[in-house]
């Protein structure tokens, strides 16, 4: 059975002034998978993410998510917002709200009838699931460390149990233990809730441990979108350098060791 596409991007072109970021870009994301998106800095990973969720309007092409068209025809924001959660690259927490209020914001927006108690309980659970201790709820985002902000942002992105989670470099800035827990967390989400996860990442360990497939962005396109082993065998020079470099080999080696142990 062919896997069902939950996100379909066809022939997308993105351009800022004369700088073309994407040209004829195609991408498929299957339902229930964790897709890792890699590419050099500035190759347009964040722009691709923004395009898929409708924050960036492409110059040409077609974008579909959950069977609803985002571009050229725009599905109403309400139709898809409840089904997607986004963790922005630098968190994008609302700086004038407490952590708990940040997590409750989407709940209150989409379920205005929700009681304060229930909202507080759900927010508390999401924060706890994201690995935060009790007590952070009352803090302001500016009082948190970078890693904690990431976790709060994840809790907020998951507040409504979305069908697709978009993560922009979620483990950047986390300690290795935290990053490994994060990987486990999202794998758990995928297994338990059937989430689809679109994850931009440079963390080779995450790629190896968590992703089902890897999409490589280079030359303004997705040059390959396949399981990691297959991507590795590609002889594109950038891919060779990425996985064949000292860090790539180290990550792979340690993972093999942990698997055989």
């Amino acid at each position, binding site marked *: 059975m062919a896997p069902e596409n939950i996100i379909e991007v066809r022939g997308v072109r993105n351009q800022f002034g004369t700088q073309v970021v994407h040209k004829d870009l195609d991408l498929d994301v299957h339902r229930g998978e964790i897709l890792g998106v890699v590419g050099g800095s500035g190759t347009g990973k964040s722009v691709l993410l923004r395009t898929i969720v409708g924050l960036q309007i492409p110059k040409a092409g077609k974008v579909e998510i959950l069977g609803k068209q985002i571009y050229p025809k725009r599905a109403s924001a309400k139709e898809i917002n409840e089904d997607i959660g986004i963790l922005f690259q630098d968190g994008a927490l609302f700086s004038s709200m407490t952590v708990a209020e940040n997590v409750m914001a989407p709940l209150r927006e989409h*379920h205005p009838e*929700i009681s304060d108690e229930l909202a507080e*309980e759900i927010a*508390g659970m999401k924060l706890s*699931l994201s690995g935060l201790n009790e007590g952070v709820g*009352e803090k302001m985002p*500016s009082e948190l460390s970078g890693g904690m902000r990431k976790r709060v942002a994840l809790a907020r992105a998951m507040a409504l149990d979305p069908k697709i989670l978009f993560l922009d470099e979620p483990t950047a800035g986390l300690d290795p233990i935290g990053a490994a827990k994060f990987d486990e967390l999202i794998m758990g989400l995928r297994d338990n809730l059937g989430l689809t996860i679109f994850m931009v990442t440079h963390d080779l360990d995450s790629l190896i441990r968590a992703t089902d497939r890897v999409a490589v962005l280079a030359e303004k396109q997705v040059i390959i979108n396949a399981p990691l082993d297959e991507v590795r065998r590609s002889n594109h020079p950038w891919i060779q350098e990425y996985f064949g470099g000292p860090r790539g080999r180290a990550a792979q080696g340690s993972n093999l060791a942990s698997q055989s142990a």
Partner: protein
Amino acid sequence: MSKAEFSVEDGPAPRIEARGGWTMADGIARIDAQIRKFTETTLDKPLIIDMAGVDNLDTSGAMVLQRTMQACGARADLSQPLKGFENVSDHHKVLLEQAAGNLVSCETPPPRASWLVVLERVGQATENILDEALHIMSFVGAVMVRMFETIRHPGRFRPTSVVHHMESAGLNALFIVGLMSFLIGAVVAFMGATVLAEFGAEVFAVELVGISVLREFGVLLTAILIAGRSGSSFTAAIGSMKLREEIDAMQAMGIDPLDALVVPRVLALLIAVPCLAFLAAILGLVGGGAVCALALDIPPALFMARTQEIIVIDNFIVGMVKAPVFGFAIAVIGCYQGMMVRGSAEDLGRRTTISVVQSLFLVILVDALFAVFFMELDY
């Protein structure tokens, strides 16, 4: 998808039969109050929750079920998270287990008595005002030190930055300042002449325009405009740099933010405000003169002659002396409030407002002090 529902069998061994989709989308929020009420009546009884009819479950639904279960009796036993649940599908098991370990509420502390809050606010505000006055004075001191340092080491001087701020705060304000003072001059002449006409002293409108525009209005209105225009933009610019840790980055590089951000802005307003005040004074006279010529039958030649004869240059000097002081006050307050921004975007907005209010207050206070000072001097 079906709505979240449940039915209960009360008694010594209460049973909840959950049915439908226990998800936020299917209305967990709707039935939460009911289930809470039920929980209160079944405390300390062994509860059974039958999950056979549940076709859909999300983390929120699992949380509500676990919360209900754990509230009933001594069941907060993490080693057996599924105790009390019946007919749980494999899929839902994981969610219920997960929820059991993460039952945490972000309860907000209850608000305190309102009179206490009022008292606290009053105290806090008083302390803040005193604190801030002290801080502003020390900030002024620090800026002065940096400015003298710049004079001693001219290499530190940042001409590009100064010129840039002179352009945006001064040059770009030329039109609005000029237009405003022209209109003010015209209004003063017109209103003055209307009243003076009753005494047959219309011609004294010239003195009225000359003295009021040169001595007060020109410079004061310029300062008010610049406080609103540039003071606020200084606060917003420096404040958002502060929020994005740019100022910390400067400090770490050994760049003194006072040198890089504050001194150029202060110098720019020290130069720009007097220039604008001069323009305002001249255009105020022009406005007054135009009204005199067009509406009051005082020809421009007469206007010029009386202005030169009667309105001594002292009035002009008194006006211009105040201009750099106003410029300094506006720039220092704007930069100070920007440097004080902490934490959130909201604080930035608050500080921007405070910056405008404080610099307006300071401008008017300084103007009043000058008035007393010159009166004592008989100037």
